[in-house]
């Protein structure tokens, strides 16, 4: 039976939404930075600490066995959620940034001077800086796939950039600033013609579109738990098993070893090879609870509804003649970035907050993208399935006040 989308019930699942900020009801439009947590996630973490906590693996006592089971069950749920071939392909990290750092560090052994790494103009700093560092270490060259004025990746330019020297392409699935959905399946297909590895920054995409890593045929996919209604400090590095096996460990210590002597150490198998030290057990359990929660919803209807809210907000914004949209891709996720003539985003953000509206203002960790559009920052409203049209009206009302005050 098809599940129905019930906004009122969904909002009740998120306790944080029911509060006032500066005397107005909270309208939370900063979901691209971090989504709020359903009670199911908060309870799962609380229950774990109240009933099941101990360190994972190797313990013979009951609590350690329980904690280990919960931790590994979480991995299995995540593997299923992204349709990984096996749970060995799911490595727990602190988040997308760490996942990309693991790759930029461990892939460097396969890179030599003059090799080329491709990223795009719209990348988050966390998908730029690790590759810059890799290039400094190895003498590889960082090349940039351009975008057009709508904020869309230029695939024809990518085809021209690809060559025998291309070793890695690392691009975002959905731009955190523009909302652009990139044609990653096509990118992966093109990259594989040149035997280049593809890393996908899925930080934004994971909450807004179903991910099937096998269908995409991507080599590596990275995302954070806290943008998927889960806790902070937990993230995922998905990698094809044969590729992860090829890579050296990232950090060294407990958990990631098989046998240690003072002369020699052998390393554990996947995924533990990449999980040195005591992991974020509660985080993984919270993330699995978020996935269970999402699976209990009609997720396709939730995604549709988010876009309805996006389209409604876009339409309402048209009532302001001073607004310029930044990012008008034909394929978009529920993110709207805009600037207002001569009015600084930070000033608008402060006034909106006084009216209970939470938006993000600034460069959104995409400074090169800001340079491309010749701006210093944007006002960004990013939507979730728990947002309402009334909240959008609150945003529009707040913008009206801000523009009046600052013009």
């Amino acid at each position, binding site marked *: 039976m098809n599940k129905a989308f019930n906004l009122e019930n969904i909002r009740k699942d998120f306790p944080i939404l029911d509060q006032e900020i500066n005397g107005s009801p909270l309208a939370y439009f900063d979901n691209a930075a971090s989504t709020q947590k359903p009670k199911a996630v908060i309870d799962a973490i609380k229950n774990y600490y109240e009933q099941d906590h101990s360190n994972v693996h190797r313990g013979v006592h009951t609590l350690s066995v329980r904690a280990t089971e919960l931790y590994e069950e979480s991995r299995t749920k995540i593997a299923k959620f992204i349709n990984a071939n096996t749970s060995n392909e799911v490595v727990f990290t602190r988040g997308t940034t760490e996942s990309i750092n693991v790759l930029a560090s461990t892939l460097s052994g396969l890179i030599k001077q003059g090799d080329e790494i491709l990223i795009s103009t719209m990348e988050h700093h966390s998908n730029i800086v690790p590759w810059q560092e890799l290039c400094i270490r190895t003498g590889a060259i960082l090349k940039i796939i351009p975008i057009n004025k709508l904020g869309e990746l230029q695939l024809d330019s990518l085809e021209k950039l690809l060559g025998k020297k291309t070793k890695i392409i690392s691009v975002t699935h959905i731009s955190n600033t523009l909302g652009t959905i990139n044609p990653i399946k096509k990118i992966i297909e093109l990259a594989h013609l040149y035997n280049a590895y593809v890393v996908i920054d899925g930080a934004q995409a994971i909450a807004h579109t179903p991910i099937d890593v096998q269908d995409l045929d991507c080599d590596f996919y990275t995302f954070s738990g806290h943008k998927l209604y889960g806790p902070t400090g937990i993230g995922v590095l998905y990698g094809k098993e044969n590729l992860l096996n090829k890579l050296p460990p990232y950090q060294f210590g407990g958990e990631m070893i098989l046998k240690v002597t003072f002369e020699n150490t052998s390393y554990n198998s996947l995924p533990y090879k990449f999980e040195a030290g005591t992991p974020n057990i509660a985080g993984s359990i919270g993330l699995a609870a978020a996935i269970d929660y999402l699976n209990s919803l009609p997720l396709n209807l939730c995604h549709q509804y988010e876009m309805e809210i996006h389209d409604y907000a876009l339409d309402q914004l048209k009532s302001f003649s001073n607004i310029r949209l930044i990012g008008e891709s034909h394929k978009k996720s529920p993110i709207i970035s805009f600037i207002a003539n001569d009015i600084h985003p930070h*000033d608008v953000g*402060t*006034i909106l907050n006084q009216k209970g509206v939470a938006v993000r*203002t600034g460069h959104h960790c995409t400074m090169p993208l800001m340079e491309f559009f010749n701006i210093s920052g944007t006002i960004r409203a990013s939507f979730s399935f728990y947002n309402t049209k009334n909240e959008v009206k609150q945003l529009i009302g707040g913008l009206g006040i801000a523009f009046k005050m600052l013009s």
Partner: protein
Amino acid sequence: MDKKLQLLYQSTILEHGQDPRNFGKPDRYDEFAEGFNPLCGDKVNIYCKYNFNLELEITFESVSCVICTASASLMTTELGGISKGKAIELIDAVLDGLHCSTLNQKPLSKQLTMLDGVKEFPSRIQCAALPWATTRKAMIESETRLE
């Protein structure tokens, strides 16, 4: 209208923010520093020069919010015509005040107490502090270079 907002965006701040004094790059200057707020991407360039009496003249260029621009503009009027030593003393008093809540208690001019409203908005303190910290940097770094 919200009282806190009114205090933050009071008419003097809006007026200096939208029509800043001493804005632009001079032909000649003795000290220079670039200030950058990595949180929002705002940039401020500070130019200091000294006349025969070693009195300060400051101009600035910026791509910044109203609070930062107004703070820079107020700063240039406040520090203009005084000695470098006194300027550094005043800068330190303002920066201390912005970061600790004693702006009113320091012997600052009425103009500068306009910045008081910022303290109600912790996320904006850096906006107001940036021009002052950048001017300090310009002055101190030039001394380091002379050494």
